[in-house]
């Protein structure tokens, strides 16, 4: 299970909520054609209908594709560690059944351990601390092991 984070603050409002420490992504669903969108938006790019409802997205899915970010992103905008403190991290699209594919950081960054089609679960991920000492949290996906726990 995930280790509790002492003072979590989300990287931004309206992207996810923390439910018992686990992020839940905030999406929209088109009331006309059922298309799902993330982040939330008004106006459906599929059917052009302008009535959507807020939904919470699935917390489990399968890895559709992935890469490994091996060099530090430019900061700003990046909020994580750069320079000597930088560690490569995985990035992928996770397919949430019946909804959409969401882009996310992955907790795994070893190409040998990442496979298209593997089962993934959402977890909180600490990018760094803000000026008040809070942990700035974004969402990530972690591989699910055989017995259902995250590896």
């Amino acid at each position, binding site marked *: 299970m995930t280790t509790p984070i002492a003072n979590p603050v*989300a*990287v*931004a*409002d*309206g*992207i996810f909520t923390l439910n018992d420490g686990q992020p839940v992504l905030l*999406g929209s669903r088109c009331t006309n054609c059922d*298309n*799902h*969108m*993330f*982040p939330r938006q008004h106006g459906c*790019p*599929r059917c052009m209908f302008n009535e959507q409802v807020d939904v919470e997205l699935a917390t489990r899915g399968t890895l*559709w*594709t*992935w*890469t*490994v*970010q*091996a*060099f530090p*992103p*430019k900061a*700003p*905008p*990046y*909020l*994580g560690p750069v320079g000597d403190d930088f560690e490569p*991290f995985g*990035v*992928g*699209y996770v*397919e949430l059944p*019946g*909804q*959409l*594919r*969401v*882009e*996310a*950081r992955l907790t795994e960054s070893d*190409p040998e351990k990442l496979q*298209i089609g593997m089962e993934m679960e959402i977890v909180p991920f600490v*990018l760094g601390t803000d000026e008040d000492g809070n942990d*700035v949290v*974004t*969402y990530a996906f972690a591989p699910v092991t055989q017995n259902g726990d995250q590896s």
Partner: protein
Amino acid sequence: MSDVAIVGIGMHEFGRHDGISGMDQGVTAVRRALADCGQQWSDMEFAVGGSMDAGAADTMVSRVGLTGLPFTNVVNGCATGGTALAQAVNTIESGAGDLGIAIGFDKHEKGAFRIKGPRGKDWYGGSGLALTTQFFGMKINRYMHEHGITRPTLAKVGAKAFRNGALNPMAWRRKPLSEEEVADSLMLSYPLTQYMFCSPGEGGVAMILCRADKAKQYTDRPIYLKAAAVRTRKFGSFEVLAPSIALEHDAGPTSAASKAAFEQAGIGPEDVDVAQLQDTEAGAEIMHMAENGFCEHGEQEQMLANGDTEINGRLPVNTDGGCLANGEPIGASGLRQVYENVLQLRGDAGERQVPNDPKVAYTHVYGAPGISGVTILSR
């Protein structure tokens, strides 16, 4: 088929040019294009141009001449040059002008592009997701999984680019690299290494266009624009910098622009003698071969093994070294491809000339947030 001809071309060398602004490079390209067809700036009836990071193109009139001509600025991401060309074609075909110029130039800071998040507080960039390089790694990784393309084939594309770039005096990177050197360079975004990626760079290109029936007034070797098409993404296509994508699949803006261009030109992929395809990275060239209709998905593995896309091959691709050897000054990149094709069709491409008098040449540019531009030229 359009009734427009390209009669003059000019380029400022691609690369890194300390102390020379992007605008300077655009102005040099303009002067060289005018000299190429013996015209003056005062002969231009209209201009269309753009850059992403090097200023508004129309301000160059204070340098090249305050003649009062209508000058349209184009800002359309990676398709800026292609869009400028398409607008110039439309201007001529509408009858609003008979002789005009399309211009693209740029100069970017070193390293990967710095990109702000799509909306609101920047959670996307803040989380480490606002990198175009990640998209390219993820798109080719999925493609390799679906279509059996292997990592050595990615290295083949890189080695070809630097081999061709070494033959191009206007290219930025002119040192040949072996497949091993490409494959073993620093891994940037799996499965793509440093030498499989192009870098943001600098450069400028200009070209002078006119009504096809007047072309012989300006040059004895006009090149005809049979098609110029620009398309944006549709629902379901997998594009760069997308926090989410739909479960539905669309073939994407490249396929759409390619189909539209072939329809305009009234020919098919089998008629093309040389092609410049967007190679932001090695995998993009491979995927774009199929998206532009030159092969089926997965056939690229065997085509590269056969050497089909070499200068002497069945379908030479990126004969000037592409983005990999030239770098990518966004505003100029699409016009660079057209410049190379004009040289190839004139028979002026020197050491990298495609043999057997190529007659039909194809360009394809692609970029954020899902836009493609295609041209088809003929002698």
